[in-house]
């Protein structure tokens, strides 16, 4: 499957995680260490990753396998959506990753409270409350759409919560459960 993935996709997956190139290098080395494999030194990977992402070089098999382990979730999405075309699969993987990084309703409430803590020229308190309410409403819609999409794609149940992100507590899918 990873043979189908372009350098541009590797870059998008990395950025979707919010990782810079040195972080990506650390993650590759961490997974390699966990599986007892030898890989290039950190500085070597920091040079190679941008080359892979630009398409100037193709990662060797051992690196492709490491990417596969790190981005198993994205590859799962890719495999799932590939029947609908690569463009669909990439869009799905990307939007799911972005959704998983959205703050929870409680975190949005905390932002709202902090924004309301002092008078502002840019926005009235009512406008601030409206923006926060809008954010939470879209968060709930996001959770609903993710569940709908998962059901349409034939995943097991509404638990599209296997995005594999670092902070599962921030997944908007949880907001559905919280509301229930």
């Amino acid at each position, binding site marked *: 499957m990873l043979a189908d993935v372009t350098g541009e996709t590797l870059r998008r997956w990395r950025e979707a995680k919010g990782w810079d190139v040195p972080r990506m290098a650390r993650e590759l080395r961490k997974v390699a260490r966990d599986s007892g494999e030898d890989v290039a030194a950190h500085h070597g990977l920091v040079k190679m990753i941008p080359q892979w992402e630009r398409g100037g070089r193709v990662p060797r098999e051992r690196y492709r396998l490491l990417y596969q382990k790190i981005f198993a979730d994205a590859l799962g999405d890719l495999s799932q959506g590939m029947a*609908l075309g690569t463009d*669909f699969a990439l*869009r*799905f993987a990307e*939007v799911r990753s*972005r*959704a998983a990084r*959205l*703050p929870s309703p409680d975190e*949005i409430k905390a*932002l*709202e409270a*902090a*924004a309301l803590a*002092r008078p*502002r020229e*840019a*926005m009235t308190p009512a406008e*601030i409350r409206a*923006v*926060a309410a*809008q*954010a939470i409403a*879209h*968060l709930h*819609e*996001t959770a609903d*759409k*993710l569940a*709908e*999409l998962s059901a*349409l*794609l034939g995943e097991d149940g509404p638990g599209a919560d296997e995005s594999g992100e670092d902070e599962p507590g921030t997944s*908007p899918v949880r907001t559905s459960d919280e509301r229930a």
Partner: protein
Amino acid sequence: MSARDDEIRRVLAELEVHVAEAEASIAVLKALLADDEVQVEENP
């Protein structure tokens, strides 16, 4: 293209809109708070 495929594409498009709208609203709130930090730096 089947009706199911159309439905999946429609839901994905809606999902993208909601994620973008949520990100935009959150960015507005964060920008307000970022202004606070700038003001503290300018007038400590």
